[in-house]
Structures are given as C-alpha cells and as structure tokens.
C-alpha cells in the first residue's frame, strides 16, 4: 500500500489539496495527518502588541522621507547649460574601439568656461550615481532572488537624464562620453525592464555583462578625469 507523503499531508492541512480516498482507508495515514495537524496548530509566533496610534507613529517616521524632494537640481541646470554651450566643447578623445582596451581619457574643455564646467560636473555626478546603482547589483548575493524595484525606479530616472547628457555630448563632439552614455543607457534600460524580483540566474547574467562590457571600469575612468577638471 502506498502511504501518503508528508508533503501531501502538508498540502492537505493547508487546503491546497483535496483529501485522497486513501486517507479514508488507511488508519496509519490518518494518524500521521492528525499528528501533523496537532503540531501545526500549536505553532505560535506571538508579536509584541502595537498601540492604536502606531500607524500615526510610522507615518511620522516616513513622512519626511516621502516628501523630501529628490536631488534633481542638476538636470535643469545642465539643461540650461546645454543651451548656453552651442558648439563650445572641443572634441575630446575617450577610449574608442576595443572594449577592454584602456586608453587615456582626455576631456578637454577648450575655454574652461563656467558653462562647460557645470555640465561636466553634472555628468560626473550623474556617472557617480549610476555607478552606485550598478555596483549594488554587481555586489548582490548571487544565490538569492533580489528585489530590485527600488533600483528600477532609480534606473528609470537615470535613463531620462542620460538622454539629455548624451545628446549634448553628441552635439558638442564628445564622442567618447556619448558612447559611454549610450552603453550605460542600454544597461539601465535592461534593469528598468527586468522583473522586479530578479531571479539569481538573471542577476548572474547581468553581472557577467557588466564585467564583460567593462562599463563600470569606463565610468570610473571618465569620472576620475572629470574630478580633475
């Protein structure tokens, strides 16, 4: 006689399976089921009580964070600078060609005007924030699914900023920066459209891609050069 498995009894207890005819016929399985039922019905995990005003307390803790404006001032500033710049940027050379090849990054600012500096600071800040997002994913535990919903919100914001900077870089002849921003946009879009709960295998694929494309390395190099300006 095939007795019921423990798993079947568990599913039965939780109402995820119908009682099989065998349970009626087999006293041994009925006894095991009763025993399981007694054990599970004794499970308690009491939580400390919370007062009636607890919800208001929670709200007061999160209210400031919710209403705090996000750091977006650089975007309109950069947008204004785009208008000022015209063709003032001198074309710079960034790593071109070979993906893994490290080359000296030069981001010349011909006249070192204030407008150019503001824009480069904005791009530097943008790359720094993007790096944080990518590093968080690159360092995540590869063995468990990861809730990236918050990261996706950040990625969405970064994508819209990215376009502004990339178009400006293209218009002003900053081919290297434009190319980096294009690569970055692709990665950010991938993150934005991934499942909010990213399974380990997808997370691993993304980590591989980040490593193979060398995008974090490129961002560090460009960011470091901008800091020197």
């Amino acid at each position, binding site marked *: 006689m095939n007795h019921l498995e*423990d798993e079947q009894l568990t599913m039965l207890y939780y109402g995820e399976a119908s009682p099989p005819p065998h349970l009626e016929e087999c006293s041994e399985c009925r006894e095991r089921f009763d025993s399981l039922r007694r054990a599970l019905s004794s*499970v308690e995990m*009491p939580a400390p009580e919370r007062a009636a005003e607890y919800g208001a307390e929670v709200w007061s803790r999160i209210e400031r964070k919710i209403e705090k404006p996000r750091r977006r001032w650089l975007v309109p500033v950069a947008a204004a600078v785009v208008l000022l710049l015209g063709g003032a940027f001198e074309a710079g050379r960034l790593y071109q060609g070979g993906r893994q090849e490290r080359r000296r990054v030069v981001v010349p600012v011909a006249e070192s005007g204030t407008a150019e500096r503001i824009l480069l600071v904005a791009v530097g800040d943008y790359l720094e924030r993007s790096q944080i997002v990518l590093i968080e994913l690159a360092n995540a535990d590869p063995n468990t699914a990861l809730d990236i919903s918050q990261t996706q919100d950040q990625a969405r914001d970064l994508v819209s900023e990215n376009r502004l900077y990339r178009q400006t870089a293209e218009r002003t002849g900053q081919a290297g920066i434009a190319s980096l921003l294009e690569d970055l946009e692709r990665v950010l879009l991938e993150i934005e459209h991934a499942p909010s709960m990213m399974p380990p295998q997808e997370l691993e694929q993304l980590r591989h891609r980040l490593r193979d494309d060398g995008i974090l390395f490129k961002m560090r190099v460009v960011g470091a050069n901008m800091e020197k300006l």
Partner: protein
Amino acid sequence: MKWTDEALVAAAKTGDAGSFRKLVERHAGHVFQLAYRITGNEQDAEDAVQESFLRAYRQIGRFDGNSSFGTWLYRITANCALDVIRKRQPSADDSMRTVLSDSATPERAAMSGEIRDRMEEALGELTPVERAAFVLRHFEGMGTAEIGKTLGCEPGAAKQSVFRAVRKLRKALEPLASGVISK
C-alpha cells in the same frame, strides 16, 4: 466616512500624501506583525515596516489592483523583512537562533517554558526563506504559487521551503502536541 483601500490607493496614485497616510495608519499594525514574524526581532521588524511603506509609496503607480492593496503591501513587507535579515549579516542562516534567544517579550514569556523553548529552537533551525515561506503560508494564508511570486522563486521551490519548515517545526513540536513531553 470610511474610505475603502481602493479609493485611498486611487488618490495616493495622484500624489495625495494624505490618502497614503490613511493607508499607513490602517495597515501598519499588520505589517509590523508580519515583519516581526519573519525577522524574529523588534528592531529589524520596525526597519522593515518603514522600508515597506517607503517602497509601497514609490511603487504605488505600479499597483494594478489585481490583488487587494493589503496583499500587495504584505508581499512588499515579506521582501523588506528578508532584505533586513540579509543585510544584518552575510550568513543570515546562522543568525536567527541568536536573534530569537535574545528577543524575550511578554508575549513569548506567556507561552509555557518548554513550548517556547522548543518553538524558538525549531524556528532557529529555519533559514530566512523557509521562515518567510512558512509565515506567509501558515499565518497569511498564501498559496504556495503566490509565495513563490512574492519571494521571487518558482512555485516548486516555494513549496519545498514550506515543506522543509514544516518538517523542522513538526520534529520539534510533535512530541509536545501528542503529550509525549509534559507541558
């Protein structure tokens, strides 16, 4: 007039923070209870509660209404609670026992000594994912498919987590429940 969750969610989606506040006030108690059961620790539960509502606020535009707001929020809470455990220390699997033994509360004290000890010992044997899966199944009444969706794993893996948790708890509690060990 008591607003329904649906009406509050619709208003919150337009940016009405007051409506979101009402949702927080309405659900905070249950969110805390769930977070506490998963983390086994009051401070961690409070961190998870806060993060859950912040995450819910940011994501409310994506809430499609296919489930109740509560169900959606509790899914977020389960994940936040797991994140808190994982951040607490790299090898979270080993941490639960310590946390539980340190978390004496009046509610725990009210349980008879031996039951409490065995319960804590058994809970300490569970990995964070097993514990979360068990809490969602046993206390929240979620089906294993929904647990899988919540925890980001296949339904089969969620089912196995529940089975493993039940097996460990049963091993510890059956002697008590059948009266083999005096209470």
